[in-house]
């Protein structure tokens, strides 16, 4: 049974991150995703210190707040003349540092250690159960991730056209009256939500792997946005299964193995993609010659 819950949690993480990752990769904001996944850390810790529990909505809210704060600060420094990547670097390292300092100062009082935040504890997911009126409803993480996935699919589904246009041609989107800035912040809010609900299972640092790697794999395989989202989710789920298998065999970190499996799939797509793959391109060249 524990295998089932771990795989389900991993797949939900992959689905949440896979959908959002596509838009990050298309808007060339992969590193902003990286930044947000680091900088929600102080939000998580502060909410944890205030509420004392690990799965409150407060935590979600605090992380959302810090995600938006990160986006806002990056934007502000960029507008004041700092290069984009430098402003990302300054903001997320500062916020992450605050988070780590808070954890190390209060590590004794609270049950929240650096390792859990860094690489997650997906193996313990099925021990943290949600009991409602005496009935066992299953692991809390699954419910949290399910809720996040619902929010993500609803928001993306409702505003699919707007997100699509913003991803490919921001200038046109702005010209025909779509509030581009609003959708930018909406996307970043969703990324923060996905990060905080995944952090318990894959950790704050490896979330970025699940955000970017499957989406990039999908990007190499297709030219259509709808297909790309589907493929990205599929690649994410496949890497969850592969990664978990590898982790059981090797007795190593599950989250780490999941990201390694995702990278493995990416390398496969990079080499053998029917339209983009290196080897396919070489073969085509040889045929022409």
């Amino acid at each position, binding site marked *: 049974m524990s295998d089932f819950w771990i795989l389900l949690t991993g797949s939900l993480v992959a689905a949440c991150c896979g959908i959002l990752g596509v838009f990050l990769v298309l808007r060339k904001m992969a590193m902003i995703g990286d930044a947000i996944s680091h900088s929600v850390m102080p939000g998580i810790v502060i909410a944890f210190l205030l509420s004392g529990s690990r799965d409150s909505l407060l935590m979600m809210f605090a992380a959302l707040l810090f995600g938006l704060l990160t986006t806002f600060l990056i934007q502000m420094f960029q507008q004041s003349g700092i290069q984009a*990547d*430098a402003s990302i670097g300054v903001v997320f390292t500062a916020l992450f*540092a605050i988070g780590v*300092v808070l954890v190390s100062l209060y590590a004794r009082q609270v049950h929240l250690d650096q390792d859990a935040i860094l690489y997650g504890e997906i193996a313990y997911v099925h021990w943290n159960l949600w009991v409602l009126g005496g009935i066992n409803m299953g692991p809390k993480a699954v419910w949290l991730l399910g809720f996040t996935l619902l929010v993500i699919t609803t928001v993306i589904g409702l505003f699919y056209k707007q997100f699509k246009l913003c991803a490919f041609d921001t200038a046109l989107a702005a010209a025909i009256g779509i509030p581009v800035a609003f959708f930018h912040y909406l996307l970043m809010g969703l990324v923060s939500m996905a990060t905080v609900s995944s952090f318990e299972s894959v950790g704050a640092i490896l979330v970025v*792997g699940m955000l970017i790697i499957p989406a990039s794999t999908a*990007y190499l395989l297709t030219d259509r946005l709808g297909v790309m989202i589907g493929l990205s989710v599929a690649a994410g789920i496949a890497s969850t299964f592969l990664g978990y298998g590898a982790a059981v065999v090797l007795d190593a970190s599950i*989250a*780490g193995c999941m990201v*390694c499996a995702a990278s493995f799939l990416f390398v496969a797509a990079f080499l053998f993609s029917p339209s983009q793959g290196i080897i396919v391109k070489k073969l085509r060249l040889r045929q022409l010659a």
Partner: protein
Amino acid sequence: MDTIWSMLSDPNMQWIFLGCTLLGISSGVIGCFSYLRKQSLMGDTLAHAALPGICIAFMLTGVKSIGLFLIGAGLSGLIATFGIGYITRNSKLKQDAAMGIVLSGFFGLGIVLLTLIQHGDYGNQAGLDKFLFGQAASMIASDVITMTIVCGLLITVCTLLFKQFKIISFDPGFARGIGYPVAFLEQLLMLLIVVAVVAGIQAVGVVLVAALLITPAVSARYWTDRLGLMVVLSGLFGAASGAAGTWISASVSNLPTGPVTVLAATLLFGLSVLFGPTRGLLAKRLMRQRVKQRFIRESEPLVKGSVKKEAAL
């Protein structure tokens, strides 16, 4: 909390203090060039990518020596840079996605290796996880000596090749035109970044060492428009943050050095954003006020004139 002087009287602490300060100087200096070449996040990627190199070096030799780790991390950092370049050149993925992939892929591999080491029968592995956030206090004299030599070397190379690095930072096309080996210099700069990152890992940790490259350089940029001065200021900022980080983390138990160093650097950055002479927020606000007042002063006679004209009509 001890006072800084009583801490400095401890000879072991003096070494660590010196090492971290030198580290701050050298990464501040190199950070300037990587900032100007719009490669700030490269340091972050390289730092994460160094983790599997460190783990493999430890697995192969079973020794925790900073020299070996330098070699392992340097090699995996070089593979990472090569990987980023290869992905960007050979697919439609842009540099940010390539960096994200390499960063998280290598870091994932590093975490896997780290857990393999922890679960396996490698003796003497305790403290390897200190590399994630850095623990300056855990450094031993030979580590500090290696670090000092490396940092000295970095500063020397940057001083000697200052003119060349300056040109490739601002105008690589011109540098090629006057016959500099641009590709070689770019690779050399990348190598120096790798070395700075790896040297910093033990003190600041894998996750945050990039901040030592980025934050002091960005702060220095607020104070000046001249590269020479910027490099010096950035080095000073880096040194101050390194020193403050070591001092505070050594005197409070359980506090890793990396985050404290980064927060010190961020504080300096905040001060620069507020008080920078021409780009700072305060200076900008004052400037706007002056311009507004001058405008009002200069347009006053015109307004009066038009009022008079209207009255005459």
